[in-house]
């Protein structure tokens, strides 16, 4: 106990302050409980929501009147190659509209075609214009609105605290430990119900759209206390990331570019999508566009810097400025004027369809542990449609907030096992005693092996190589050296992140090795076809110190494959 610098107590502890965490906080607070949001970086500014560009799917049918929830459901399950939990999909499509109306009530304001009709754009894999937006800064607008509402509700927020572990007692979560970067403190949090909303793990790959904080902390901490994970092999590589300079490599080039009419060309000037999906062309689903671009590059038809060309210059300058202003700026920064020149793009690790396995009320396999947003798994199946993720944060953030609050009202605080707490303290401090490599070096090795071996194209051989490399890096953790002290110690944070990243990487690779077929985002060169026998979800959980892995049939309600 004397190892702890401070103790925080609340009814509901929310880990993560992006779109899902903030929405959960707002909802929980309405149920008359104390809520504390703990964020690894700055609130609303260190997750993926604030970076989300293109939009939010809600089948209003403001432009294409035929659109409805049933079509949204079908497009989502079809895009997810039938691995989706269809109950969750029903909830997503059923509540996406009301949740975006909430956002306007909170203070948001989305683009309109007339005063009472929101603008909606085309996005990949969808039959109709369904994606609501605010230019190409939709996530920024959403986060702005959520933060205003969080302030109105007077929710407590603690910034720059990295949660390092969950503590359990008698089968439920009773606490969490945290590293306070600002004050350099080791903290204990006690709560009655917990919501994990930490987002994905893009940083386990060397090329990613994700911010620096996305090391998969939520998957790791939930897994370690026994929660089940699902569909972890399903990693979405966004088709269009920046290619050069190397510092910008991987940065997102929004799907809205293609939604607004952007065309893809190879070095021969061919609109190559015609060969891969002649019907949907550039607006095919992300998994297909990604593999198409990857094939063009592999087969020697790459652009100057090793990508393909994405051209939007045929649109009027004013339209580009208004609808794709962020892209215009992002490319001008590196000397490219997209009003005149094509962009160069190639795939980048973007989103984790899998995650903590939850039921319809966002409850994990541990009764008082909830999850929402990207860290949860099930709704997107094997491939996520662009625009469904922002909707997911709001729909399931709201549900998780409500049910965690209800759970908290039923429960007393649990007992903290102080021996375990001390162990966690020692884990954080043990790096100081070491001698040897910097955590960055091992991190870079992991990122490289994951990109090369567990990336867009996978084989049994590549996956086994990754497993071996992960094991080797794990053994080297003990030789990590970091500067002493807890205050804004980026070396220590990198070391803590690395442990989570290694665990998540191993889980992903193990699941990818098990799935001997290609489906959605998971492509096995040695099993290149979709196989009906693999119409199953892969579920992973902790057993002793290892990983238990098994399959279950997906939950189907309305739409049979």
């Amino acid at each position, binding site marked *: 106990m004397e190892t702890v610098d401070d103790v925080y107590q609340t009814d509901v502890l929310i880990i993560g302050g992006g779109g899902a965490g903030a929405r959960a906080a707002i909802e929980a607070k309405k149920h008359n409980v104390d809520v504390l949001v703990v964020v690894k*970086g*700055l609130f609303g*500014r*260190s997750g993926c929501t*604030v*970076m989300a560009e293109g939009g939010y799917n809600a089948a209003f049918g403001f432009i294409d009147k035929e659109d409805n929830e049933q079509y949204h459901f079908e497009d989502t399950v079809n895009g997810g190659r039938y691995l989706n939990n269809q109950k969750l999909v029903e909830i997503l499509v059923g509540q996406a509209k*009301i949740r975006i*109306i909430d956002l*306007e*009530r*909170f*203070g948001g*304001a989305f*683009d*309109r075609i*007339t*005063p*009472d*009709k*929101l603008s909606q754009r085309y996005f990949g894999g969808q039959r109709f214009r369904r994606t609501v937006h605010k230019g190409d*800064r939709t996530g*920024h*607008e959403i986060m*702005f609105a959520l933060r*205003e*509402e969080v*302030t*109105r509700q007077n929710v407590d927020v603690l*910034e720059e605290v990295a949660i390092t572990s969950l503590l359990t007692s008698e089968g439920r979560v009773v606490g969490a430990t945290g590293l306070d*970067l*600002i004050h*350099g403190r080791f903290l204990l949090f006690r709560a009655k119900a917990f919501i994990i909303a930490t987002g994905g793990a893009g940083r386990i790959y060397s090329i990613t759209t994700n*911010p*620096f*904080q996305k090391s998969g902390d939520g998957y790791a901490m939930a897994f370690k206390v026994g929660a089940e994970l699902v569909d972890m092999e399903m990693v979405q590589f966004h088709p269009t990331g920046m290619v050069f*300079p*190397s*510092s*910008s490599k991987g*940065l*997102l080039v929004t799907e809205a570019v293609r939604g607004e009419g952007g065309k893809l060309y190879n070095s021969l000037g061919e609109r190559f999508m015609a060969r891969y999906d002649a019907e949907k062309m550039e607006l095919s689903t992300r998994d297909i566009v990604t593999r198409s671009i990857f094939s063009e590059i592999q087969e020697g038809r790459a652009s100057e810097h090793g990508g393909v060309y994405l051209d939007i210059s045929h649109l009027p300058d004013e339209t580009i400025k208004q609808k794709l202003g*962020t892209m215009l*700026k*992002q490319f001008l*920064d*590196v*000397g490219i004027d997209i009003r005149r020149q094509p962009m160069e793009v190639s795939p980048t690790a973007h989103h984790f369809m899998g995650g903590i396995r939850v039921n319809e009320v966002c409850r994990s396999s541990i009764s008082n542990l909830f999850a929402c947003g990207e860290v949860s798994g099930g709704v997107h199946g094997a491939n996520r449609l662009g625009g469904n993720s922002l909707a997911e944060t709001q729909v399931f953030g709201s549900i998780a907030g409500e049910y965690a609050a209800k759970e908290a009202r039923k429960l007393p605080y649990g007992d903290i096992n102080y021996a375990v707490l001390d162990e966690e303290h020692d884990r954080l401090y043990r790096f100081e005693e070491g001698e040897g490599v*910097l955590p*960055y*070096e091992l991190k*870079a090795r992991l990122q490289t092996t994951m990109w090369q071996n567990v990336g867009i194209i996978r084989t049994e051989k590549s996956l086994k190589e990754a497993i071996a490399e992960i094991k080797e890096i794990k053994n080297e953790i003990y030789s990590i*050296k*970091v*500067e002493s*002290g807890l*205050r*804004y*110690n*980026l*070396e220590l944070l990198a070391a803590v992140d690395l442990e989570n990243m290694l665990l998540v990487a191993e889980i992903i690779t193990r699941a990818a090795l098990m799935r001997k077929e290609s489906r959605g985002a998971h492509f096995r060169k040695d099993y290149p076809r979709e196989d009906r026998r693999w119409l199953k979800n892969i579920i992973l959980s902790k057993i002793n110190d290892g990983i238990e892995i098994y399959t279950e049939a997906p939950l189907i309600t309305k739409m049979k494959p």
Partner: protein
Amino acid sequence: MKITVFRYNPQKDNEPRYEDYVIREYEKHMKIIDALNYVNSEYGANIAFRSSCRAGQCGSCALRANKKPVLACRTDVEDGILLEPLRNFPVIKDLAVATQMSYPRIRALRPFIHRGTKKSDTLEPMLLRDLKRISKLKDCIECYSCMSVCPVFTNTKEFAGPLLFRILARFHHDVRDNLGRLTIAVEEGLYLCTSCGACLVACPEGIDTNKEIEKMQTLVYESSKTKN
């Protein structure tokens, strides 16, 4: 290429110092955060700095480069560049400052829409004209660059600072809001602004807070005239 970095850990050091680092692998358009990451992983320098999105969208990484506030993720590094933390906030460590200091005062502005208790389940109509009035003001990424350069905020905390007036303007122009934002603006030092325009120059989003403050000043002046 050489960069010079402000180093200070208030928990350990008596005073700040400056250290030079050599970048051996320079590439055109290398950004400041890449240089800092390079120095940290190459030399174990463990320089503390804030960053998240590296795409100019989150506003986490503002610092001063050659005395001017910039986003570290969007600014090219150059030979001899001097990197220092933003001004007017306590240093947590090296280049990270406690912008959190401003939160209580921001909360006191009541930065959320005030209106009747009407709860609507349908989309509220909004004129495109009204949307346009607030759109630019909501581009703010809260990087605190303006708070670092404002000479009035530097001199007196009676002036709340450009960021807070940007927040007031955002609500003042929102047709849905009915709280008297101008009264709050006066209490927060509206008239202390000297219209120097430094906040606009510093803003990576090109938001003209200076102009917004002037507009509010005019409105307050005119309403006081009618009262008299």
